[in-house]
């Protein structure tokens, strides 16, 4: 095992503090660079670390290559979400979205390109941004989070064009339906809402917790994760992880997983999900658990599949959560190693 128990060396004040910080670190978000060779991950202290996947995966990888090549303080609060375009890295967390140039980051000159704050109604607490979503066709970025709205930002001009209101509690997650520009959002209020971006209005609402098959009142109503593939949608959280047919708004498969799930994604003919517990779960669409691959963190918050065509050798699944480690799965069968803050 990689996590061999180290000999207890007495530490000074600084070392103890650093050790405690690492111990209580949570990695909320990940994003792969456009070249596919680097992975950015953001933690609860507002730091973004850039790992070199190609170096860590190469045959002569050492312990140091599993450490970040650069770490910088991006936000004051946690970095809840990150996405990458072919030039930029967008990070968001404490109410602001910041843009960084990948080229600059890799040169280790970590200066933000710009920052934007969606128009919030005044509040004692600045609402957080939990999810970012790129809409490539419209060249826009959708932000959603604490203020229960979806904000659309035009990347050309950097202005916020519309705000979609409808959720009654904060929004956890977003998903894009590629064909017709529609966006799905799931939130703490237990509802999955489908938005038509052109008409800027809500077209469908699924209140998951109201369906008896999947409701789990002791866990709450919240929808923590969401993924979609044409007419199909999978969501989980407080209620059980469920596969839905969107047009008919009916749950088709309920996946037997007790723990609340925090991230879900379609992968080929499988569904990958992660959440409470150290495992990455792989499901058949029929609801069978194909495999449970243990990682190194007690809980997982994000999965990232590196499918950049530019770097086929770095095609890996990375998973991060409530530890300072990012687990790397070179194939879906087992955890190869962990990158560490």
């Amino acid at each position, binding site marked *: 095992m990689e996590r061999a128990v180290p000999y207890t060396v007495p530490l000074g004040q600084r070392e103890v503090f650093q050790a405690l910080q690492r111990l*209580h670190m949570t990695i909320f978000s990940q994003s792969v660079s456009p070249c596919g060779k680097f992975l950015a991950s953001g933690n609860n202290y507002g730091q973004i670390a850039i790992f070199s996947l190609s170096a860590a995966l190469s045959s002569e990888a050492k312990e140091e290559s599993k450490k970040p090549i650069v770490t910088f303080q991006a936000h004051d609060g946690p970095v809840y979400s990150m996405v990458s375009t072919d030039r930029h890295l967008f990070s968001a967390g404490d109410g602001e979205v910041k843009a960084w140039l990948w080229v600059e980051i890799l040169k280790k000159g970590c200066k933000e390109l710009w920052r934007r704050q969606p128009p919030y109604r005044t509040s004692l607490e600045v609402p957080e941004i939990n999810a970012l979503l790129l809409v490539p066709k419209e060249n826009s970025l959708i932000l959603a989070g604490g203020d229960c709205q979806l904000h659309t930002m035009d990347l050309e001009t950097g202005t916020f064009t519309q705000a979609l209101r409808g959720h009654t509690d904060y929004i956890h997650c977003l998903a894009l339906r590629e064909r017709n520009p529609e966006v799905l959002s799931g939130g703490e209020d237990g509802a999955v809402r489908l938005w038509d971006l052109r008409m800027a209005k809500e077209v469908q609402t699924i209140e998951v917790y109201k369906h008896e098959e999947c409701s789990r009142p002791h866990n709450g109503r919240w929808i923590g994760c969401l993924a979609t593939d044409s007419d199909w949608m999978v969501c989980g959280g407080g209620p059980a992880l469920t596969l839905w047919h969107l047009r008919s708004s009916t749950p088709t498969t309920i996946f037997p997983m007790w723990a609340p799930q925090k991230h879900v994604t379609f992968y080929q003919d499988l569904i990958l999900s992660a959440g409470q517990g150290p495992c990455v779960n792989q499901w058949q669409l029929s609801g069978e658990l194909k495999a449970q691959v243990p990682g190194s963190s007690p809980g997982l918050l994000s999965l990232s599949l590196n499918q950049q065509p530019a770097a086929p050798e770095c095609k890996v699944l990375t998973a991060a959560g409530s530890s300072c480690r990012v687990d790397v799965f070179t194939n879906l069968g087992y955890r190869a190693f962990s990158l560490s803050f």
Partner: protein
Amino acid sequence: MSSESSKKRKPKVIRSDGAPAEGKRNRSDTEQEGKYYSEEAEVDLRDPGRDYELYKYTCQELQRLMAEIQDLKSRGGKDVAAEIEDRRIQSCVHFMTLKKLNRLAHIRLKKGRDQTHEAKQKVDAYHLQLQNLLYEVMHLQKEITKCLEFKSKHEEIDLVSLEEFYREAPPDISKADITKGDPHQQTLARLDWELEQRKRLAEKYRECLSNKEKILKEIEVKKEYLSSLQPRLNSIMQASLPVQEYLFMPYDQAHKQYETARHLPPPLYVLFVQATAYGQACAHMKSSQPPRQDKTLSVAIEGSVDEAKALFKPHEDSQDDESDSDAEEEQTTKRRRPTLGVQLDDKRKEMLKRHPLSLMLDLKCKDDSVLHLTFYYLMNLNIMTVKAKVTTTTELITPISAGDLLSPDSVLSCLYPGDHGKKTPNPANQYQFDKVGILTLRDYVLELGHPYLWVQKLGGLHFPKEHPQQTVIADHSLSASHMETTMKLLKTRVQSRLALHKQFASLEHGIIPVTSDCQYLFPAKVVSRLVKWVTIAHEDYMELPFTKDIVEAGLAGDTNLYYMALVERGTAKLQAAVVLNPGYSSIPPIFQLCLNWKGEKTNSNDDNIRAMESEVNVCYTELCGPRPGHQLLTNQLQRLCVLLDVYLETESHDDSVEGPKEFPQEKMCLRLFRGPSRMKPFKYNHPQGFFSHR
């Protein structure tokens, strides 16, 4: 030879003469006597060559006659007899001639021999003479070389150089005109000059001696005067003692102390000097405080000076004499478990022997508590150890859980990170231990005191790991550079320990002693209560299921103290395992939580428990309170109670369960959950009194 020849001749005569009467023989003898003498003279006259011719002729004649006789005899006949007779007569004549010739030859031979002999003797005499002469020559030559090689005594004398001689010697000695050309005279002159100079120096020497004598006498007189002064001075000193005491000027005492300090071993001496200096510097800085007795650092030497003296003397001539140390051993005997090898045990005792003198440092803190430090020096190991004791002005009620806080064994543990004082700092000691079978010094620290690294540094001892040195010398500058920091650390340590001690006393009774100046950190109403605060063993801590992370992160060393706290509210029980680093409060106590409420919740299955740990462990700086932050532990515990309140009150209500919530929400929160991990609002905002997310 001549006699022999005469004998031969006699029978011949007889034979040839036949048997005629003896008288005839006598007559012929006398005749022959006369002829003999003449014959000798005759020899000189005759020519040997002619004699030889004659001899040859005679022989031929004889041969011819013999042959004729032979011839006649063989022919036989009567007439031959006469002829034979005739012939025989002729032969006889020839025989006579032959005889004569024979005699002559003999005489000649004899003569020749005599001449040869004579000549030989002469030659021998000459030869001997020659030998004598040669010997004499050789001897003379030897004498000459001996003379040539003779060394004069004056050559050994180191004379002044030639130039110097001509420059300094007076002309009546140097006589430059004579000596310049003649080296012999020159040498003589130089020798004269040498003699002259030596004479002068001898004179001077005598003068100096007398001078010295005089000065010695003077010294003697002055000494006598001084010694007569001593009793008078003593009496003055005696008289001044009450005055000194009255004026708080313990010069006399200090003097005595310095006298004793001379017998301290070097490291203790360094420490003594530096500590005294530091103490005085501190006293000067606070010159506003009038009485000297209030100074924060006081230094005293303990132990018997006589023993130290006794130790020092044999130490000089025989270093490893073990028999002379019985007296000291009695004092410093360590009571250890008996071992089978008594001899080995003795060797161990000898190795771990302390110097009879020790140094007492009393460090006074602001609240009048005193840290008593006793420094020892282990002579054979060349390390210093310290024993510590804390006394307070007021009697402390010792809580059960505070047992280790002020114990001499652990009060100074890890003053500097990692300095637990259980291993010897001198790398050379390990080899010494191997010899006598000591595994580690750890078993002996209770009796000997702890060999902390800072103690060595205060004593000026430095044992570099990279460059092991043969001898480690006590260094004043090293001690001085560490003195201030260490003293401050010591004071902080005592204060933090006393503060903890006080806090523990309350904690054991379930009261969290939040001071008024920390009250703003917490809401007015805290429902959760601390119900238990106990100390637990390191091993127990390691075995707790929810402390794995801390152990793996290397934060659970055996130098730490471990506690278990239990916070309760209603049916919810929150266990908190606490690691108290000896470096409290600069290094915070570390909490690991386990909540028993609707199942067991720890940081591995509940992100909010993890967040609560993070609130007390990572965000501890907010909880330090006023400097120096010794209230941290109390505040952390109080914070934990608040966190538990928030956790329980914000727990989402299960709609399916009938009845009221067990914990109605009383805290004011802006939002219940936030972010992907659905954090609860744990942050308390002071004057407004609401809770928000971090």
